[in-house]
């Protein structure tokens, strides 16, 4: 529903896409309306599995095996794309409408030179000669701000860093000056500083070329400064569409409200919980009747569960799909006690609980044709000092490769420092041996980043949770059972989880299990290495709230 007057560069009306699997049909996208004007950016926001990527692929007609557009229309500059035979679509792809993918590493052909890959659409669509296409490729690489573009033409993708590769992908997409750009999570795999650069680049190019851009992402921060309008997607449906300002400040749909409320902010009141959404998104092979958000919605009524609300609104610029819309951001409940809890106060001793002084860890770099000599060393951690007190939470922030994971490993003793001192309650734990060391390990536990790799796939949850107690020889079987049940309950998982294997859980649920496991030994210190970065935004807030609550 574009605003009256201007012709939209891209107009999607009532688009529905199904994916037929061997035993079920996934309703990936349902009744989606959106419109983008030339020179504007529409942000498409949603969590993983909500169908935003499928939407982009539907527009291009590049659905995976089993995927079909079953209804709706996609108009590019007034021209209908749905139903167009593939050879016609081929002429448009890369030419009038282009797409950028998330993972630049695997999206570029590793055995072809960069110049060739950027030149390819030019040769294809404009019938350019080799030389002409190469010149154009050079032009485009300069346009996207790639340093030393002439050299890069003959290099291969693996020679470039992530940020530079992403620029190359953008170059490929822009080579033929498309009218519409679909950017599917273009910055998710990049570090924060590079993200900002790429987003600025996209902005700049949009202005210069007058492109209409669909910016698909799960990160609200990305769309905040860049998009003119935002559509929020949930379970295959658009639940709200409005200007960026309205979405952030005057949202109407409960999901939007909860989504924005679950993002931690610097100026946030520390005693308030993050808003989180109970439960998990629905299985799209078997979606609920009625509003798809109803099972998790705080305001759901019977009407919501029975009938699906249409995307409407009095103001055509602000549409939402809800029977009982909310009014603006929500007020989070005060749940955390001001100051430190009595337990923490009691635990505080003189001096710091965890103290690190000048920790150093280096890895040798070898080179040499025949005999491997040490030529250099990678100084992963160089003289880091910090301390954490009881009841305190210290955040360690840095970009990838800065050494924070290594430091975490040093703290829990997975690696040994080359120099420096790491002391828990005054004692250097990792200079101890044998039983003393094992006893001391009870106090230092870790939560890992990847929820899929930190649990043994062959063990049931019950065994996983029991293991720390077994290793440390703590408690009789009955006592262990009781403790397992208690912690399982505290992390919010049902009792039938005990009999299940890790692969039967979602990412957020696995992190809960990992947290429960870390807490079994009642450690004094927990090192949590990026515990929520692999999770969706609304699930993150669940886990973060949980961690904060259990810390006390």
């Amino acid at each position, binding site marked *: 529903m574009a605003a009256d007057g201007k012709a939209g560069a891209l107009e999607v009306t009532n688009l529905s896409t199904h994916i037929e699997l061997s035993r079920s049909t996934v309703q990936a996208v349902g009744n989606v309306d959106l419109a983008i004007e030339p020179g504007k950016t529409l942000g498409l926001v949603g969590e993983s599995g909500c169908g935003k990527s499928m939407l982009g692929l539907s527009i291009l007609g590049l659905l995976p095996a089993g995927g079909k557009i079953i209804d709706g229309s996609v108009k590019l500059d007034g021209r209908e794309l749905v139903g167009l035979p593939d050879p016609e679509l081929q002429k448009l792809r890369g030419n009038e409408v282009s797409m950028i993918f998330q993972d630049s590493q695997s999206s570029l052909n590793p055995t072809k030179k960069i110049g060739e890959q950027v030149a390819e659409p030019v040769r294809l669509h404009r019938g350019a000669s080799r030389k002409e296409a190469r010149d154009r490729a050079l032009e485009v690489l300069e346009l996207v701000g790639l340093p030393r573009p002439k050299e890069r033409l003959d290099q291969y993708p693996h020679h470039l860093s992530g940020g530079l590769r992403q620029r190359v992908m953008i170059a490929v997409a822009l080579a033929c000056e498309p009218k519409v750009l679909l950017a599917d999570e273009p910055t998710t795999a990049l570090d924060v500083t590079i993200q900002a650069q790429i987003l600025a680049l996209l902005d700049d190019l949009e202005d210069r070329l007058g492109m209409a851009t669909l910016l698909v992402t799960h990160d609200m921060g990305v769309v905040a400064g860049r998009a003119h309008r935002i559509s929020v997607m949930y379970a295959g449906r658009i639940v709200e569409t409005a200007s960026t300002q309205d979405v952030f400040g005057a949202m109407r749909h409960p999901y939007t409200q*909860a989504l924005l409320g679950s993002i931690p902010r610097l100026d946030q009141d520390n005693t308030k*919980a*993050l*808003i989180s959404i*109970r*439960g*998990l998104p629905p299985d799209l092979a078997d979606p609920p009747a009625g509003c798809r958000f109803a*099972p998790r*919605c*705080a*305001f*759901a*009524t019977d009407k919501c569960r029975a009938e699906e609300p249409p995307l409407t609104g009095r103001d055509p610029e602000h549409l939402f799909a809800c029977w009982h819309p*909310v009014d603006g951001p*929500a007020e989070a*409940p005060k*749940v*955390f006690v001001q100051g430190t809890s009595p337990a923490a106060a009691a635990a505080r001793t003189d001096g710091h609980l965890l103290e690190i002084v000048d920790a150093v860890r280096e890895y040798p770099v070898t080179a040499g044709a025949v005999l491997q000599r040490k030529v250099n060393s990678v100084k992963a951690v160089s003289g880091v000092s910090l301390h954490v007190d009881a009841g305190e939470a210290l955040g360690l922030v840095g970009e990838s490769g800065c050494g924070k994971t290594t430091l975490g490993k040093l703290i829990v*003793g*997975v690696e040994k420092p080359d120099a420096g001192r790491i002391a828990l309650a005054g004692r250097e734990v990792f200079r101890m041996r044998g039983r003393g*060391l094992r006893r001391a*390990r*009870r106090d230092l*536990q*870790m939560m*890992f*980043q990847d929820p*899929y*790799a*930190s*649990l*043994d*796939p*062959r063990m*049931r949850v019950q065994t996983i949770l029991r*293991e*720390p107690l077994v*290793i*440390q020889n703590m408690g009789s079987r009955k006592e262990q059972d009781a403790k397992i049940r208690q912690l399982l309950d505290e*992390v*919010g*998982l*049902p009792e*039938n989880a005990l009999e*299940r*294997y890790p*692969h*039967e*859980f*979602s*990412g*957020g*649920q696995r992190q809960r299990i*990992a947290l429960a*496991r870390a807490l079994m030994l009642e450690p004094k210190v927990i090192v949590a290495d990026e515990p929520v970065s692999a999770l969706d935004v609304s699930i993150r*807030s*669940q886990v973060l*709230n*949980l961690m904060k*609550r259990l810390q006390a």
Partner: protein
Amino acid sequence: MTEDLENRVKPLGATGLQVALSDPELMPEGGDVQAIASGWRLAVREFANNKVAVLGVGILVFFVLFCFLGPLFYHTNQSLTQPLNANLQPGQTSPINGQTYPLGTDEHGFDELGRIMLGGQTALEVGFFAALISIVIGTLYGAVSGLSGRLIDGVMMRFVDIVYSIPFLFIVLVLATKFSATVLEISLLFGFFSWLVPARLMRGEVLTLRERDFVSAARVMGSGRSRLVYRHLIPNALSVVIVNVTFLVADSILALAYLGFLGFGLQYPTASWGDMLGNADNYISNGQWWLVYPVGFCLVAVVMACNLVGDGLRDALDVRLRRR
């Protein structure tokens, strides 16, 4: 309408807004746990859905029964040569005793069908034992190598590289000129040169698993080395090994067939299918197709069945690990 709702909603604990109107059976905060299936059951179900793999299992079961139980019901003379019975076609009446043989007789007058059953026994036995020996040696070697320091690992793998480069068929043939009298001897011979691939596979798995987070987690909890190996590494590496076993059985049966064809396999009366094909070119020239095609068919069927099962296992176990 909004005001109405706000009055009815109560915050509940630290978990955020809570529905007070909807059904009283609260969803646990972490969300419901979907009952998919236990790990092994999932793998079995996946396997069972793979019709081709199930067919493979069926074929193998059939042949095991056929070869080992068959002779109990179908008695034939396999020891006394009866030259007058020789080379009868299927259905052709014997001049001595007026019998007809469903698959004819060979040049010594032995019932071909009975010979196939016995030949199958040997083939399956060798296949199974050789695979067993390879797996036992290979997994241990590979696990030790993968867990050792870089130097020992390097030396152990270099040894594997060397022996692996010696062409299997040649060395086995050469040694078979001396050591091929019994099923056990041949199985050992095959086993000694087939453990290299499982060793490499095991070592690869161990190396990968060593770096996994769940192993680190166990170390952080204070787990000792042996616990890591027995409770974490080996169970996880097993799936790769299991898949390899089926392929080893197939390879060993084929190798036995090659040896037999060239005349270096087992001898009468423990002859295996391969040995029965030793004179195949002569049989064919004489038009004695019944001495060639049935045996060959059985051989191909069993080897193919093993490969099918192996592929099916690989897919099924992969699904389990890859899920979500």
